[in-house]
């Protein structure tokens, strides 16, 4: 991973890409490692992505462990935005932004 500080746009791209690379659903802990973000920062981004309907959270009840785990899903709108992000990135790269 590059040492360069990622922009907000790149962070969102990395989060959505990590979910897509895991087949469209991922556990929050895995996402934290994959996107290389702190727990606090990841949560703030996830809240924003939920509001924008780019991802949705599924709560799964684990009867053995008697707890509820979460699974993050990439929505269709999220997949669409991921494609658009790639174009945005191409535009940003091409025009040196």
């Amino acid at each position, binding site marked *: 991973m590059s040492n360069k500080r990622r922009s*907000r746009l790149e962070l969102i791209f990395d989060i959505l890409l990590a979910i897509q690379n895991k087949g469209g659903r991922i556990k929050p802990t895995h996402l934290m490692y994959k996107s290389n973000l702190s727990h606090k920062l990841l949560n703030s981004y996830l809240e924003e992505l939920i509001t924008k309907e780019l991802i949705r959270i599924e709560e799964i009840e684990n009867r053995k462990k008697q707890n509820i785990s979460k699974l993050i899903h990439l929505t269709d709108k999220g997949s669409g935005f991921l*494609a658009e992000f790639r174009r945005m990135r*191409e535009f940003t*790269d*091409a025009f*040196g*932004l």
Partner: protein
Amino acid sequence: MFQLFFTPEWFNGFDIIFEGIILVVALLIASYSYNIYKFSKENKFVYFSLAFVSIALGLLFKMFTHSVLYFSSLREVTAGVLMPITGGVVLFANILYRGAFFAEMFLILAAWLLIFFISQKSRDRLKKYHEVSQMALFVYLIFLVSFVANFQYVVFYLTSAVILSMTVLNYYKNYLNKNKNKNTFLVMVGFLFILASNIFFIFVFLYSGLYVVGEVFLLIGFLILLLTYRKIRKKARIL
């Protein structure tokens, strides 16, 4: 009637069509950059959008002054409209044309400068106060250049050429940094054509035919930018 420089008569009107096409290209790029800003909230995108809007506005002023200068019927209508203000004295009309030329040069120089600043690879560009204050100084300088260029048009194209050559250099660095990506190459070539057009415009005082060459190069430059934009956007439209 006040005129900045003389152009080949047979080309009158064609340049206005060329500028109309460039204006549309500039607005397309500005609109896409603004769409990215709306999502990312990063200032650089709104500045980039502003630069292309500035080019479009500058061209609009150029199209206005050239239309009035080229076409006698339009000239008569404008003179008629101005009559109550000028009282038949041509001097005031000259001030209007000088004002329009000034607006054209100021907006286009501001656009080149903004694009140059944005293409600079500095993390905190356009965020810190001192960078914005530097820009205020440059705004003053382009104001001065635009005013002086009303009397000696070469100053405008010379300043444009200097800023554009630095921008082309930035885009060359960008091309090397992005592993010689095809789109970065196209943007660099596009700006190279725009730079070449400005160099041709400098020497119009020697041979008016160079104005035609300059206009063609300017159009090619923007068409290359349009091609890059289309290549990026053609897959689908979501934003």
